[in-house]
């Protein structure tokens, strides 16, 4: 089933968030970021915020991604 525009928006928001705060490589821009790589990063973020670790972009995960926050990454270099 093709992604709805709403799903695409969610995906783009998540990719931008994970690139900035969880080191998702931006080199995969343009092509669909490989889903298991994206899923691993989503899990990393869910674990940090003590959300249910599903690897999916559920409502709670997206709600946290929309919260006003500090621009410093949550992990590593």
């Amino acid at each position, binding site marked *: 089933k093709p992604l709805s525009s709403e799903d695409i928006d969610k995906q783009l928001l998540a990719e931008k968030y994970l690139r900035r705060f969880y080191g998702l490589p931006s080199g995969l821009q343009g092509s669909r970021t490989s889903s298991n790589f994206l899923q691993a990063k989503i899990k990393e973020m869910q674990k940090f915020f003590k959300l249910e670790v599903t690897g999916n972009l559920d409502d709670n995960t997206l709600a946290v991604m929309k919260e*006003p926050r500090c621009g410093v990454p949550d992990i590593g270099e």
Partner: protein
Amino acid sequence: YNHFPRHLKWENNNVTFRIVNYTPDLKKADVDKAIRRALNVWADVTPLTFKKLYEGNADIMISFGSKEHGDYNPFDGPGGLLAHAYPPGQGIGGDTHFDEDEQWTKDSSAYNLFIVAAHELGHALGMSHSTDPGALMYPIYTYTTGYPLAEDDIEGIQALYGPNPNPKKVKPRPDAPKKCDPELTFDAVTELRGETIIFKDRYYWRIHPQMVEPELTLIKSTWPSIPNKVDAAYENPEKDLVIIFSGIRMWALNGYNLVDGYPKYIHKLGLPKSVRKIDAAVHIKDTGKTLLFTDEDYWSYDETTETMDSGYPRSIEDDFPGIEDEVDAAAYHYGYLYFFHEHLQYEYSYNSKKVFRIQRANSILNC
């Protein structure tokens, strides 16, 4: 808490800072004050000192900018990213940038500059983000009053620099409650549109039937207008309202919004002025009554007539055999009353008027 990789820190405890430009949102003196207060928060618990420079290069260069502001790390307009800072080091190391597209304030009306600055300057000293929702170094902005550092923050910064040789008496904010602590007690429990909300200190857990993990959040980050300490709460599903009690005042929430005209005094319900606090509250859907527990007694409030039933207060022990003590919190599900007292939960059958089961309070949190 977390540090940056290689535990980056200032080798010299006497750190310099300079405010390069100012936001038009606040008076210059207010910005100076917010930054100085934010630095003092960290100075109070470490040997660090902060000297202000007015020209040239300082260790920590503080500035306001929007979108691309010279470090190839652009801000994003209103909301989202509020500010960022770089770990200790030469050049851009320690520099702290605030997004000028935000509205900077001295209160809770928008983004409080003191709170954001205290967080960002934590980065400028070597602190990375904390996973503890009650820590100042938690990545998500929350407005709070009072002393900003939690135990977690203090442990983290002292792991880098050690304690202040002449420590000031500071009362750190308590870290977030641990849901599986066997001695965990609750302040209040209520339903909210199909979810269960459990209040504890400045936090609440949100239990959703489809969510395995209860979600811990700061009360203020969802409801900035209600106090950090909730005594009791209940939902009136017919009116789609949750009533929150704290001290002698009560707030009405419609979802996430505060209902106009609140807070009100609890005595509006018909309670005598001698009642200064409600320990627990629960709405019994089947009868339309709301039970309010205070010390060893309870009252019955009729939600339809909005009046207190006559013949109250009555003794909890007389009417709920098996519930000897005072009640911390109460909930009602499918004919059972759940009384929480200290670290235990009593499952009480409303119809057969007896306690069926006693469990640990946090069994409701899958512990």
